[in-house]
């Protein structure tokens, strides 16, 4: 009889299984399933204790996915376009918890655009993933606000309206972390999720995640084929956890590598590819996005980062104990204050 191989655990003492969710009910081959796998991998590799992370979503195919990862995390699959507000309120319950949100292009860029932009401008500490496929899936294939002009869809005709660029919207709302990735590039997706989860503030991660049922035609910009043919990474990104020594892959001349130190001491290493790109310059980020659209490119990578801005929770001088652990003596003013308050009335 052979002894079974010891189950591998991470520094939290947990196995990969501890990060899993229920089996996906999305279409086989859906980009969202690939992203859910990368969320599981990223959380495992970051040694996150599942109970210390909250997950949120709105309504739509993408918003179903919190069921498919992190069974041991609290979460809320909320209302269409309203993930931003429920997450904002929930984060006050226990500021020691991290948060990840999964939304779609309909959920974020149409019905939830207002809430999205306000969540961004408040710098709510959450990794905000948009699984962007340009189409409404659960309602069977209508155009979303990120669909490109001229896109033809069965039963829908041709889209006439300009697409919303989620990264542009995030930048315009003063996001402190903006990234774009492609579900067909799982390694980059995982590294960016790790970086987003380590960012202390709003981290908007727009992931082109093809809908294989309704919008995966070769010429559609949210398809696997188009993405693979047009992806232009800004840099090669790798995430180095705090306390780990940064080992650069191979030999690099000075100036070819940028390091961004995150709030928790981890580092995002950006290795230069064709051109140098500075992700701390918002103006250049806008320019880069403009150019990539003009040049028909799917530019991916860390587009913008600012680690200096306080988060929404930082602006409240809250007690150290999580608010949801406070009890009556903390919450109800003492009896003798009542007379004083009455005396303040006329």
């Amino acid at each position, binding site marked *: 009889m052979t002894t079974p191989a010891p189950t591998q655990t991470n520094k939290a003492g947990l196995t990969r299984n501890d990060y899993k969710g*229920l089996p996906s009910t999305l279409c086989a081959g859906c980009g969202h399933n690939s992203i859910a796998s990368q969320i599981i991998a990223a959380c495992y590799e970051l040694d996150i*204790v*599942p*109970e*210390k992370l*909250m*997950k949120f979503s709105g309504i739509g195919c993408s918003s179903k996915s*919190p*069921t498919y990862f992190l*069974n*041991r*995390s*609290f*979460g*809320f*699959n*909320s*209302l269409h376009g*309203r993930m*931003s*507000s*429920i*997450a*904002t*309120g*929930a*984060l*006050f*319950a*226990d500021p*020691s*918890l991290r948060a990840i949100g999964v939304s779609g292009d309909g959920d974020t860029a149409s019905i939830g655009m*207002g*809430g999205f932009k*306000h969540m961004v401008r408040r710098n709510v500490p959450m990794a905000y993933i948009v699984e962007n496929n340009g189409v409404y899936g659960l309602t069977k294939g209508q155009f979303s606000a990120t669909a490109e002009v001229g896109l033809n869809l069965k039963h829908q005709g041709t889209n006439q309206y300009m697409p919303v660029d989620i990264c542009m919207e995030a930048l315009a709302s003063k996001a402190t972390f903006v990234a774009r990735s492609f579900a067909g590039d799982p390694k980059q997706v995982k590294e960016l999720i790790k970086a987003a989860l380590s960012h202390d503030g709003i981290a908007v991660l727009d992931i082109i995640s093809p809908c294989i049922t309704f919008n995966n035609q070769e010429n559609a910009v949210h398809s696997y084929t188009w993405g693979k043919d047009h992806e232009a990474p800004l840099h090669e990104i790798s995430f180095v956890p705090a306390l780990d020594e940064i080992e650069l892959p191979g030999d690099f001349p000075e100036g070819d590598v940028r390091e961004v130190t995150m709030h928790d001491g981890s580092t995002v290493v950006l290795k230069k590819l064709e051109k140098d790109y500075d992700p701390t310059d918002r103006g250049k980020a806008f320019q880069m996005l403009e150019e990539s659209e003009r040049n028909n490119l799917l530019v991916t990578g860390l587009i913008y980062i600012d680690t200096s801005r306080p988060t929404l929770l930082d602006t*409240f*001088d*809250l*007690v*150290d104990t*999580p*608010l*949801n*652990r*406070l*009890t*009556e003596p*903390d*919450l*109800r*003013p003492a*009896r003798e*204050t*009542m*007379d004083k*308050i*009455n005396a303040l*009335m*006329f």
Partner: protein
Amino acid sequence: MTEKIVNNFSLTIATVNGSGSQTANVTLLRALFKMGIPVSGKNLFPSNIQGLPTWYTIRLSRDGFTARRDEAEVVVTLNPASFARDLASVPPGGAFFYADDIKPPIDRKDIAAYPMPVKALARTADVSPSLREYIANMVYVGVVAHVLGIEMEAVKQALSFHFKGKESPVNSNFGVVQAAADWAKQNLTKSDPYFVEPMDKTSGLIMADGNTAAAIGSVYGGVQFAAWYPITPASSLVETLNVYLPQLRKTKDGKATYAVLQAEDELAAIGMTVGAGWGGLRAMTSTSGPGLSLMAEYAGLAYYSETPIVVWDVQRIGPSTGLPTRTAQGDLTETYFLSHGDKQHVLLLPGSVQECFEFGWKAFDLAERLQTPIFVLSDLDLGMNQWMTQPFEYPDTDMDRGKILWEADLEKSNGVWARYKDVDGDGIPWRTVPGNAHPASAWLGRGTGHDENARYSEDSKTWEANMARLKKKYETARTLIPAPVIETARGAKIGIIAYGSTAPAVDEARVLLEQANGPKTAYLRMRALPCTKDVHEFVKKYERIYIVEANRDGQMKQILSMAMPDQAPKFRSACHSDGLPLTAAWVRDAILEQEK
């Protein structure tokens, strides 16, 4: 001059919105209160920042009645735009004070007319020219005080309160009041019968508005999170939280045990509130009709996901934008059934400033006990006007945090629990909240169909069983909500049911009915929905039931008719809604008319 009329008349002051007259009006109200005279003040103001006419009516009632009256025997006007209307409104024998710079003809011989040199006296004030327009209002305070007999000391106390004891503004304002009173003494001869004399009927009482009471009540209820969006007439509720939370709810080292956040709209305000409530915080939002309509979708999610939140609706008249600065009880049916699908909500119906305070804290206990949204329906009249009230009473019960499981509880049960299981037979399940570190603690909240373990389910039987449990929980709610206040009357054949801010009008109307040799009435004031056993019993006892409310459609009558269809033929509506609080005379007449 006819016989003296003492402490039993109304005084209306007509000014221009934004001119600072509110300080003067409240000063008169408070001075009268300080003299021991029962008073009530009603601000009739436009939806405008500056320039439109506004009226403030103070009722003095030696008998202690505080409902609005239609008539005002004493009228003061500083506003040329409303002058003709104000003059015409004075009843024969009444008094009319006016700024003498308006100079229109006064063509009435049946009233006492008093000119006031407002501009001339304001010029003598010891203030910068920019404040002169504001301080001019103190001229009418001084003149009216002298002619009616309001004590100068009481005026000074009122000013001192308003300016928080700051000597400079108190002195400059009081200086104008005194100068105006002196001027009146030398130049005016009293020719009207209205007098103010000290009484002792306000000792032990305080003055406050309902929104302030609601906010302070919420602070004592342990509010931890409030998200809101500005809307008249609810804004001052959360703004008042921002005044008292820092005073009452910081730790010794100055850290906050609460967070207040202004949202981008009402959709987000309630969404944040639901997030915080789900997270285990005592969470609230406050709004008015238009905001409430926007909150409908999240209200349904809170109901179905069983998330405790408190929603204050300070009602204004609708539908639609309606009249943003006028009152009504028009959101009752909307709130009762807010959101789509099968559901009914728990409503609290404060009928006084004191109850605004009480329900301020009680609402959180009910929300956490029942794991459901609790709606508190105040209105503009109750929320924004100053009322005499008993002092706020410290909560008489400990906080009820409801059925919540923490790590130690789950260890005891070896992690066995189910989020939506009715283990106690009252329809109320147990919950855990984020931050609970037990590996079996987590669950995924959702507005989609779910089983006892909060897992997504499309199973028909599971759906129906869960909805049946929610209905059972609603039955439990009936046993926990505030009971109605009942006044019986020997030999009464008819009963009155009312709720909310119509209470003062109904109280007085019952006396007026007696004076008119009308029918004897029993009275039940509802303080919550759904109907409790007491309401059913009350209705059964009487031949006819008049349901008094400030809306067009008789919304409480609709709800009660559904709750007890066999009794519905007894119900008669006494409903009326023109944006103003009901008067006792109207209530009396509405009943007498139908009793003919």
